[in-house]
C-alpha cells in the first residue's frame, strides 16, 4: 500500500509543478469566474431611466423589486422631450399626467407606470387595495433555468476533466512502458500497485481541478449575485458531482491504462485508445441530451446504466429531482462496473506492460496463460 502512495505522490508532485498544470488551472478558474459573472455583464436585471418634469417620483421599485430605476429631473417639457429622443431616458413623466416616449413604450415599464400611478392616486383618495396573492399549484419551477444552466456547465466540466485525466493516464503508462522504466519499477512494486498509484495520483489532480472549479464557480456566483437563483439542494449536487467524477474517472482511467499498455510508443496511444474515447464521447452526448430533457426516458435509462450513468446521473440530479432509489441503484451498478473493470484492467496491464515492441492484440493478452 505504501508503494501505491509513493507512486501516486510522484504523479502528483511531478505534474503539479509543470507550467501546463498551473496555467490550465488558472485558465479554468478565470473561465468559470467569467461564466458566473456573464449574466450580470450581458443581461443583468431590467433597468430603466425615467425623466420627471414637475412630477413626483413614482414608487416603482416597490412594485418591481427585481428591476432598477433611475430618475432624472428636467426643468421643462422641451428638455425632457430632447432627452427621450436622444435615448438618455426611456420615458419621461410630465406634470404627473403624461408620459413622453420615443415610439411605443417598453410594455413592462408602461404597465408599471400605469398601475403605480393608479395605486398612488387611489391611495391618496383613501382607497387601499390588497395585492393579489400568487399560489402555484404546479411543480416549483422557480429554479428551473438555473438548474439547467448548472447542468450544462457540469456536463462540460465533467467531460473535459475525465477525458483530460484519462489521456494523461494513457500517456503515463506508455511513457513508462516505452522507456522501459517498468523493467526497474516492477522489480520493486507490483503491477497493480503501479497501476493503482498512477490512477489515484492523476485522479487526485483531476479532483484538485474539479474542486477549484466548484469553489471558484460557487463563490463567483455569490459575489456576482446570480447565486440567489441557485436551487436549495446545491450542496447535494456538488457532493454528487464529486462522487460521480471519481466513479467515472476510475472506470475510464482503468480501461485507458489497460488499452495503452498494449502499445509502446506515444504515437500509437490515440489509435489504441479510440474505442474508449468514443465511449466517453457517447457518454458526453448522452449527458448533454439529458440537460435538455432531464425527465425523459432516455435520460432515466442512461442514468442507471454504467458507464453512461457517470455523467448522465449528476446532470439529471442537477437538472431535475431524482428519486433516491434511482441514485442508489445507479451508484451500486457503477461501483460494480468499476470493480469489474479494475480486475480486467489490472490483468491486461500486468500481462502486457513488459511486452515491449509491436502493438499487442488484446485477444492475445487475454488468452495467454
Amino acid at each position: 500500500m505504501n508503494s501505491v502512495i509513493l507512486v501516486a505522490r510522484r504523479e502528483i508532485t511531478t505534474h503539479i509543478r509543470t507550467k501546463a498544470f498551473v496555467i490550465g488551472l488558472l485558465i479554468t478558474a478565470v473561465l468559470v469566474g467569467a461564466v458566473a459573472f456573464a449574466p450580470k455583464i450581458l443581461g443583468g436585471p431590467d433597468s430603466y431611466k425615467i425623466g420627471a418634469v414637475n412630477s413626483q417620483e413614482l414608487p416603482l421599485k416597490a412594485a418591481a423589486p427585481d428591476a432598477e430605476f433611475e430618475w432624472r429631473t428636467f426643468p421643462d417639457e422641451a428638455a425632457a422631450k430632447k432627452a427621450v429622443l436622444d435615448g438618455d431616458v426611456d420615458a419621461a413623466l410630465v406634470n404627473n399626467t403624461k408620459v413622453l416616449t420615443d415610439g411605443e413604450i417598453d410594455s413592462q415599464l408602461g404597465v408599471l407606470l400605469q398601475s403605480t400611478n393608479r395605486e398612488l392616486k387611489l391611495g391618496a383618495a383613501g382607497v387601499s387595495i390588497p395585492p393579489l396573492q400568487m399560489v402555484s399549484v404546479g411543480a416549483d419551477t422557480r429554479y428551473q433555468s438555473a438548474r439547467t444552466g448548472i447542468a450544462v456547465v457540469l456536463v462540460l466540466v465533467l467531460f473535459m476533466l475525465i477525458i483530460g485525466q484519462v489521456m494523461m493516464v494513457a500517456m503515463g503508462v506508455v511513457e513508462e512502458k516505452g522507456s522501459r522504466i517498468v523493467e526497474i519499477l516492477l522489480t520493486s512494486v507490483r503491477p497493480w500497485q503501479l497501476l493503482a498509484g498512477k490512477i489515484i495520483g492523476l485522479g487526485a489532480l483531476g479532483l484538485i481541478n474539479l474542486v477549484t472549479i466548484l469553489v471558484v464557480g460557487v463563490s463567483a456566483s455569490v459575489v456576482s449575485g446570480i447565486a440567489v437563483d441557485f436551487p436549495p439542494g446545491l450542496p447535494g449536487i456538488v457532493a454528487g458531482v464529486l462522487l460521480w467524477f471519481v466513479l467515472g474517472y476510475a472506470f475510464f482511467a482503468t480501461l485507458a491504462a489497460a488499452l495503452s499498455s498494449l502499445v509502446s510508443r506515444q504515437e500509437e496511444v490515440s489509435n489504441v485508445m479510440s474505442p474508449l474515447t468514443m465511449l466517453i464521447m457517447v457518454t458526453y452526448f448522452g449527458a448533454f441530451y439529458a440537460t435538455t430533457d432531464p425527465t425523459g426516458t432516455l435520460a432515466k435509462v442512461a442514468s442507471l446504466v454504467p458507464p453512461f450513468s457517470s455523467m448522465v446521473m449528476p446532470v439529471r440530479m442537477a437538472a431535475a429531482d431524482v428519486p433516491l432509489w434511482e441514485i442508489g441503484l445507479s451508484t451500486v451498478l457503477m461501483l460494480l462496473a468499476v470493480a469489474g473493470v479494475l480486475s480486467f484492467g489490472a490483468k491486461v496491464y500486468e500481462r502486457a506492460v513488459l511486452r515491449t515492441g509491436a502493438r499487442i492484440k488484446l485477444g492475445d493478452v487475454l488468452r495467454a496463460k
Partner: protein
Amino acid sequence: MLEISELRKRFAGGPDAPEGKVALDGISFAVRPGEMFGFVGANGAGKTTTMRIVMGVLQPDEGSVSWQGRPLEYIGRRRFGYMPEERGLYQKMRVAEQVEYFGRLHGMGAAAARTAAGDLLERLGLTERRGDAVEALSLGNQQRVQLAVALVHDPEVLVLDEPFSGLDPIAVDALATVLQERCRGGVPVIFSSHQLELVERLCDSVGIVSAGRMVASGTVGDLRAAENRTLRVVVRDPAPGWADGLPGTVTVTGDRHVLLTTDGDDQEILRRAMKAGQVEHFGAEQPTLTEIFKEAVA
C-alpha cells in the same frame, strides 16, 4: 549464493521464422556472495535474456533461479539492484529526486533514501547535476544516474547489464570502485560487458555464453589453465628457412621473426632459434581473456 540452473527460453517467431528463436539453451551458473561475475558473449548470445529472467522481467520456459537456496520470488528480487540493457528513467524528473524515489520504492525511509542518493551521486560525480532534469544530462551522465538507481537501496545482489558501456575512463574507475566495495561487503555482482580487459581486471570469475549456452566458466586463471599454452619466440635477423619443419606459424615484421606454436618440443625450438639468430624473447604466452573468448565461441 545465486544459482541459475538450466534456463531455457524460446522466443516466438514471426511469420518469416515460424519455428521461433532459441535464446537460451540450458544455461547454468552460480555466483557466490562477494564474487564479481563477468558475463561475456557475442551479440545475441543470451546475456540480456538471462539477466531479464533473473530479474523476473521475462519468464523462462524451463529452468529456475534460486537465491540463498530458495527459488527467487518477487520479495527476494525487491532487494536486488538491476540495471537493464535498455536504460529507462523519467526524463523530466530531477536527478536526485529520481534516485531517491527508486530508493523509497525499494522500501527505504525518506531520510535514508535522501542520504543514500546524495552519497551515490557524489561518488558518481553528479552532485552538481542533482537538481537538473534527467533529459538535460548527456548520455553518459544519464547512465550514471541509472547506476545510482540500481545501487541506491544497498542491494543484496547486483545484476547489471553492460554497466560500463558509454562511460568515460574516470566514470569507469568510479563505478569499478563502487562495485568492488559492494562486492567486498558480500554482495554477489553479475555484470555483462564487451570490454574484456575490464572484465579480466575486475572479475573473480567469468562466464562465456555462446548461442544460449555457457561454453566456459570459472576464474580467469582456470580458464587460462584450460587453454593450450602458446609458446612465443622472437628471433632477430635469422637465417632464412630457420623454422622449416617446426610446428606453428611464423610472422615477419622487419628483421624480427615471431614464431607462435602450441605444440612441439620447446627445447628443440630454442636450440634452432639460437642457432639461427639472436633470440630476443622466448616464453609461454598468457592468453588474454579476448583470446580465450575467441577460442571459446569459435
